[in-house]
Structure formats: structure tokens, C-alpha cells
């Protein structure tokens, strides 16, 4: 268990936290990358999912896109984009992360929209609501728990995938791990890995809290 001691020493050393390759800077890069990618993915996927869900069309696509996403290794896409004219760097990383962040948002939001009680939708139609009113005042609020679950899955996944960016010259906490590998410093490798895992768990926990406070009626939706 010497390695854990080394990792602790590495974390306890203040010099490892400052500077360009320090923990604070890498953490900042990781968080910024995650926030940007999640926002872009939500902006792209959510309107499509809401629209398809409202119309009740494109279900096969909305569901299967998650299955397809799972079969494609993120790592492969990162390297492929890096070797393409886009080149290794932030752009390739962001494109890859967004591509993999879209499926969970799209699928969950679509399923949430379709899961809204048809009677409620019919009742709102009977009350003379327009399509837009039904979408925003009835379906969207009822689908919210699942939409949030999708965004949560997406965020946790982006945190995880952003780590791989370190392998193709991106920033983020993954760099601490890869630098540790290069230096053959197991303490640093494990310290970096612990930081990454902690960040992923913190993000998951934050979303769980947000969901607990926003969901007034606990529904048996998809929680992980």
C-alpha cells in the first residue's frame, strides 16, 4: 500500500497544486471543458428531443442513438479527430465530447416526453391549449425529471471522457495521470486518478441533490 502513501504525499505537496500543470489549473480546465460541452450538447439535443417527443416521431432514432453511441469508443473518435485536419487540441476534444454527450440527453428527454400521461395531454388539448402551450406548460414540466437524468448522465460522462483528452494533448485532470505515467511516478498517477474520480462523483452528487430538490413528486424514473 506504499503507493497510496506516495499519492497522499503528492497531494499534500503544495507545489503540485500551483502553476500551469498544477491541480488547480488542470481542475479549472476540466470544469470549463465539461461545462462548455454539456451546454453545447443540451442546446443541440434538447430542442430536437422535445420536438420529436411532442410530435411522437423519430422514436427509433432517439432511442437507438444511445445504443450506437455506446458501441463507438470515445478514445478512437478522439484520436481520429486528432489525426484529421482538425488536429489534436481543444477543438477535436470538444467535438468528440459533444458527440458523445448528445445521446443521453436526447434519449432521456424523448422518453420523458413520450412517458407523459396521454390523458393529461388530451385534457390540455381539450382545454384549448395550442401545441406550444401543451409543450411548454404540460409536457415539459412532466418530463423534467427524466430530462434532468439525461443531463446528469451526460455531465458525468463528459467528466469521464474529458480525462481521455489528456491522451491527445488536451488539458484537464487527465494530464496529471498521463504526466505521472511519463515520469513513472505511481504516486502521481494514483493521485491524479483519485482527483478525477472525486470530480466525477462530486458532479454526480451535485446533480442528485439538484434533482432531489427540484422533483416535488418523486417519480420512479431513471435514476442512477
Amino acid at each position, binding site marked *: 500500500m506504499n*503507493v497510496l502513501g506516495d499519492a497522499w504525499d503528492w497531494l499534500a505537496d503544495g507545489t503540485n497544486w500551483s502553476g500551469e500543470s498544477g491541480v488547480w489549473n488542470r481542475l479549472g480546465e476540466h470544469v470549463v471543458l465539461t461545462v462548455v460541452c454539456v451546454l453545447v450538447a443540451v442546446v443541440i439535443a434538447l430542442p430536437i428531443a422535445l420536438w420529436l417527443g411532442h410530435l411522437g416521431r423519430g422514436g427509433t432514432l432517439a*432511442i437507438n442513438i*444511445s*445504443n450506437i*453511441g*455506446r*458501441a*463507438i*469508443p*470515445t*478514445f*478512437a*473518435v478522439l*484520436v*481520429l479527430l*486528432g*489525426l484529421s485536419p482538425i488536429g*489534436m487540441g481543444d477543438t477535436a476534444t470538444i467535438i468528440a465530447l459533444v458527440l*458523445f454527450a448528445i*445521446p*443521453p440527453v436526447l*434519449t*432521456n428527454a424523448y*422518453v420523458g416526453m413520450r412517458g407523459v400521461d396521454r390523458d393529461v395531454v388530451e385534457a390540455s388539448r381539450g382545454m384549448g391549449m395550442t401545441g406550444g402551450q401543451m409543450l411548454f406548460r404540460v409536457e415539459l414540466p412532466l418530463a423534467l425529471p427524466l430530462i434532468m*437524468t*439525461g443531463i446528469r*448522465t*451526460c455531465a*458525468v*460522462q463528459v*467528466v*469521464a*471522457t474529458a*480525462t*481521455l483528452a*489528456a*491522451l*491527445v494533448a488536451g488539458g484537464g485532470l*487527465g494530464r496529471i*495521470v*498521463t504526466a*505521472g*505515467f511519463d515520469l513513472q511516478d*505511481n504516486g502521481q*498517477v*494514483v493521485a*491524479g*486518478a*483519485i482527483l*478525477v*474520480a472525486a470530480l*466525477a*462523483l462530486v458532479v*454526480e452528487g451535485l446533480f442528485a441533490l439538484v434533482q432531489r430538490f427540484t422533483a416535488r413528486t418523486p417519480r420512479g424514473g*431513471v435514476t*442512477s
Partner: protein
Amino acid sequence: MPVRPLGYCPPVIVASGDCLKRNSWVCGKYFDEYSEEITTALREHIYLTVVSVAIGLLVAFPMALAARRWRLTGSVLLGSTTILYTIPSLAMFAILQPFTGLTETTVIIGLVLYSLTILVRNMLAGLQAVPPDVVEAAKGMGYGPGRLLFQVELPLALPAIMAGVRVATVSTVALTTVGAIVGSGGLGNLIYSGIDTLFKAQVLTASVLCVALAIVADLLLLGVQRLSTPWERAGGRKRRQSAVPAPTAEIDLKAGASA
């Protein structure tokens, strides 16, 4: 631009006609010259996937039984496997690496831990969805706990379990690539070395093979599922849906996490 793949000695051929030398994405010559390397990587990839999912099943089974028996144990087990699933794969392999070294064991342990999330959940859901009437009937016919489990409950839970195995296998195939950071990533090794060599044909070929492997594995398992549950087909759609409700779809949604 002197782009040259590792271990590749430029032969005396006119450069313009040589797709390897031009570093094309698609290159027939690559298959000829590197077939051994590709086969080795593919074989390792299949080996890692099969072993990981098999061990995952063996570990998940008693876990699912325990989770069904004791409620508290169930929430602890499901909670901890979910936490494991949240840990990024790079971190997982990096944490295991000092203990098990740069070996296939490191990758297999990581992959097994990831597969548990999906497998335990689906096994539990499948077992819980067995109609109580059927269990009662079997007990009335004198089935003991062992026979009840293996001859009645497991077969009925099989569709849900197989759905879990398919999801676990497909994500394991994709996750295995990251094992390259500890030297055992199957096709991932070819992708990883491409970062330094910029060898396009190698990276594209390995990536496509990886996706193809996932699809083939999924279809094979679907075939196994169909063959092992003939009553599902005979019973038609309605019975299938009532026998195994939500779990399949539920897992499908969540399993997107972790890379």
C-alpha cells in the same frame, strides 16, 4: 511531410503509388503488411472482452441473489456498483496499475467492475419480474430452492439477463480500448500508438474493427438469446412485454455513462 509509421521501413517504391507512404486513411497495403499485428490486437480485444464479461457474470450472479434476498444489501450493492461506474476508465486503470502492473489483469479487473453495474441491475430486475404465481406453482409441485432458481426463475429472467449481457458486452468492447494506457487495450493499442506515429490507416482500421466487433458481439448474443428462450417467440410480443417490463429500457438509458 515525413510521416512514417513506427517499425515501417519505406520500401523502394514510387511514393505516389504507395498509400502507406502517403499515410492515407484507407490503405489496402496496410492489411497486407500489418495483418499479423491486426490479428494479434483483435484477438487480445476479443479475449479481454470475453473474459471480463464472463467473470462479471460469475461475480454478478451471487450479488444479484444477495440483493434480492436482503433489501439493505441490495441498496448497498447497487449503490457501490453505480459509484464504480462513475469512475472514469483512465482513472480506474491508473488506480489499479500500481497493484497489478502493466498487465491484462489490470484491464480485466477494471472492465469486470464496470460490467457489474449493468449485470447486477438486470439480473435483479429479471429475477424480481418473475410472476409470484409461477413461483408458488413450482413450490406447490415440490421444487426446492435450488431447482426453483435454476429451472424456473433463471429461465424466466433470461431475457432481462441477456439484455444486460448485451449492453455490458458492447460497452466492454468500447472501454477495452482505454486499456492501451496500461499496455493491454487490444485494438486500442493500435489507436494509442497512432497518437505518436500519426499512422492514419492503422487508427481508422482499428476503430472500425472495434465498432464492428461490438456489433457482431451484440448480434451473436441476440442469437443466443433467441435460441435459449424459444418460448418467447412462441408466446408473441404481448407475453414478452408483460414478462419483462421496464428494466431493459432502463438500463439502456443509463449505460451511456463512463468512457
